[in-house]
């Protein structure tokens, strides 16, 4: 039986225009990395066509529970400024916990 360790997963769906802003938050808050994939869909602001100048992204970050709040605070600040983000946090399990404590370089 492989050992599993609990971590938190933040998922964010938002416009690609915010990508740099989000990456800066992840770096400043010492997350170990992030993954971004292009996303399409529809919601309260109408359909997102996925055309390159009107694109959505899906952002995933895995981090230890004790580092969660600073990132969520920053995301709430973006929301407070009127930006549109769909944010949800889930519990995940990983097999290499040390991987998620080392801040990434960029």
């Amino acid at each position, binding site marked *: 039986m492989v050992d599993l360790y609990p971590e938190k997963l933040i998922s964010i769906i938002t*416009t*690609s*225009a*915010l990508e740099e*802003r989000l990456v800066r938050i992840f770096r400043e808050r010492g997350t170990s990395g992030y993954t971004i994939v*292009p996303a399409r869909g529809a919601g*309260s*602001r*109408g*359909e997102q*066509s*996925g*055309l*390159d*100048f*009107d694109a959505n992204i899906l952002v995933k970050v895995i981090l230890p529970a004790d580092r969660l709040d600073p990132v969520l605070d920053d995301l709430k*600040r973006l*929301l*407070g*400024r*009127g*930006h*549109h983000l769909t944010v949800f946090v889930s519990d995940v399990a990983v097999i290499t916990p040390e991987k998620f404590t080392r801040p990434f370089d960029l």
Partner: protein
Amino acid sequence: MLSNLMIPAVLFFGLGVLARLVKSDLKFPPDLAKALSIYLLMAIGLHGGVELAKADLGAAINAIIWALILGFAMPVLGYWLLIVTRRVSPLDAAAIAAHYGSVSAGTFLTAIAFLDTQGVVYETYPLIMLAVMESPAIIVGLLLAAQARQKVKLQAGGNGAAAMANGNGHGNGHGNGEDKIRLGALLHEAFTNGSVVILVGSMAIGAMSLPGSMDKLKPFIDEIFMGALCLFLFEMGMEAARRLGDFKRVGALLAGYGVVMPLIGGTIGVLIGHYALGFGVGGTTLVAVLAASASYIAVPPAMRLAVPEANPSLYLTLSLGITFPFNVVLGIPLYHWMASALAGTGP
């Protein structure tokens, strides 16, 4: 007038619209429109640069000054018109106005295709104006939005929530320091915007290159240009038709704005092109197209960042779904006709 529409670029635009209307499964590879717009800007920049090397510096500076005037004045005019109609929140109005102050390279290139087909010669200066006019409207839009936020803040006690139609109403909490940082970043973005870099850079390369060395590039910048433009407009036709469905969301009055605004801009542009800049029919038509067109590539992401409270489906529907098709199909021949009438040569 109808015969003016029978050029391949415009017909392909129509095919794109049709493909979408009959719900064809036709899909372009992702990023094709972006790749094509890079090529188109590069080709037109190189082409223009060669011509500009022979151009008169005084006339070029004059064109830049008028481009700046247009770039700063059009969004203010557009904002005021929107506020008068009272159909959108001030922040939406600021974001929409920024789109109308900026320019659409796609429309400009279609106008060039149109003039080429008609055998109309045109000055190269409007090309510099195209590059200059990308950015000022973004700055004006930002300032208008800042002003609108103040207004919203003042009404916050009463019906502030209604004024911020789509925002979730927390927009008041941020400090001034942060605003300043964002202004700096946005100015940087406005002037280092991808299309500005490609266009200005290609013009410089075209102007600096030895004449003989440019001959080798001729197939690239001349011969395949119209084909690439057809492909680009094909995809944009599909994209515009997709937006047409949002018509209901926008409402008749606002949709009317998408037609009236280019008519006002086109008229102002014709007057400036003819009287202030002394261009011929071709150049005047191009200035009109610059003043009439609305951005749908450079400004939307900038507004998403700078005015997140504004509703993107409003400004994208207006610029891409209404004004762009209007200009491509009716606007360009109309501005050409106006320019001809003014020049007294008849259409």
